[in-house]
C-alpha cells in the first residue's frame, strides 16, 4: 500500500464522502465505515477513513483533522 505522508494535526475539508455497507472481504470487520475525499490545508487530495461519523453529521465542506495512518490508510476525525 502506498503510504500517505501527513503531518500529525493536518487539517482538511471534505470534498465528498460515502459510507460503505457492502465491503470487500478484507474490510468486512470494519463495515459500515465512512470514506471521504479530502483536500488538506496544504492543498493535497487524499482518500481516507473518517472516524466519528456516527456521532457527528458528515457533510461536504466538513472540517477534519488527520489522526493517524494504519495498514488501511489515513484516518481523519471530524472537528
Amino acid at each position, binding site marked *: *500500500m502506498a503510504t500517505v505522508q501527513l503531518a500529525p494535526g493536518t487539517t482538511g475539508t471534505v470534498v465528498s464522502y460515502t459510507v460503505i455497507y457492502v465491503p470487500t472481504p478484507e474490510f468486512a470487520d470494519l463495515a459500515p465505515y465512512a470514506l471521504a475525499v479530502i483536500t488538506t490545508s496544504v492543498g493535497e487530495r487524499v482518500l481516507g477513513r473518517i472516524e466519528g461519523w456516527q456521532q457527528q453529521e458528515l457533510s461536504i465542506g466538513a472540517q477534519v483533522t488527520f489522526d493517524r495512518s494504519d495498514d*488501511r490508510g489515513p484516518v481523519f476525525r471530524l472537528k
Partner: protein
Amino acid sequence: MRAVTIVGAAETKFGKSELSYRELAVAAAQAALEDAGAEASDVEALFLGSYSPGTFVHQEHVAPLVAWELGLSHVPSARVENACASGATAFVSGLMAIAAGLYDVVLVVGAEKMTSTPVTEATRILAEAADWENESTIGLTFPGAFALMARAYLHKYGYGRDILDAVAVKNHANAVHNPYAQFHKVITPEDIAKSALVADPLTLYDCSPISDGAAAVLLAAADAAHNFAKEPVRVLGFGQASDSLALFRRPDLTTLAAARQAAQRAYRMAGVSPGEIDLAEVHDCFTIAEIIATEDLGFFEPGAGGEAARAGATARDGRIPVNPSGGLKAKGHPVGATGVGQLVEATFQLRGEAGARQIDGAELALTHNIGGSGATCVVTILGRST
C-alpha cells in the same frame, strides 16, 4: 482510413446462466456469424473483450480457447482488457485492424461469467480495476467510488435522490421489452426506498447487477460488406480516452474527463453533433453514471442531466432516448460483454429490429462504455446504412 461496418450482431440473454464462460462466448459468436450469413472461415482475426476470467472462472488465455471452440482455423486472436470497457476496447482493436488494411473481416466478442463467485469476492475482483494501492487497500469499492460522485453531484446542483430513482425506474421499464435483459420487472421509487444501502447514498437498486453473458459483432470493411446477408451498419466515428485510475486525483468528481474527450473525438470523426443522435446506450453501472454520461456526451449542460432524467427527456419517447435496452442497470452487466452488447443493441435499433423497444426512424446511435470509475472511456457513433 478504410470505412468499417458491422455486418453481424448477437448476444446471449444476460443474467445468471447455466452456460460456462466458453459456452457463452461461443453462443454469442456463432449467433453473430449466423446473423451475418457468414462462415467461420470468413473470419480473419478474433478480439475478445474480457475483464477477469482468471479470477472469476480460473481461465486465462481465453482468446485462442474461444477461437478454437468456434472452429476458426489458426487465425490470430487476442484478449483485450480495459476493466468494464474491455468490450468496446476489443471493438476498437478490430476496427483499427480493418481500418489499417490488415484484414477485411474481424470477429469481436465480449464475455464474462460472474455469478459463480460470491458477491463480496466479486466486489473485490471488481475493486482490482480501481487503483489498488491508493483506493482498494483503503476500502473503496466501485459502488463507493460512484457514491462519492453521486454525493458530489447532488450537493453541487442541489438535487435529491429522486433523480437517481428516475434512472432506475426508466431502465427497468425499458428492459421489460428486451428479451436479452436480466430483469423483466418494473420497479417504483418505493421499492428503491426499501432497498438496502450499498454505499451511501447508493442502494441496491442504484447498482447494476452481477451477470453472466456474451455479445458479438462481426466487422467488415465497407467494401466487403456486400458479401454478407444483412444491411451493414456504418461505424461513423469513435473516440477513446484515459484518465487517472484513482477518482480522488481528478479535479472534478461530477464529470468524467475521459468521457468528454472520447465523445469530442467521436463526434469530430463522425462529423455529427450531440443533437443529431437518435438514441444512446450509455454505461449506467450506477444510476448517477447515466446522468453524468448524458452531460459528458453533450446531450445536456452540466447540472441539467438530473432534471432531464426526472422530466423524462431520456425515456424512449423523450428528446434523446437513453438506454432503450434497459442499460447495465436492468439489461445486466457481464463486464467484458457490456461494451459489445451496447453495439449489438445499437445495431438492432439501426436495422429496425428492436421490437417493442424500437426507436422509430433511428439513423444515428451512440454507445458509451467506461472502465473503472472512468479511467477508460470509449464512445462510438454508428449510422444506418443509406
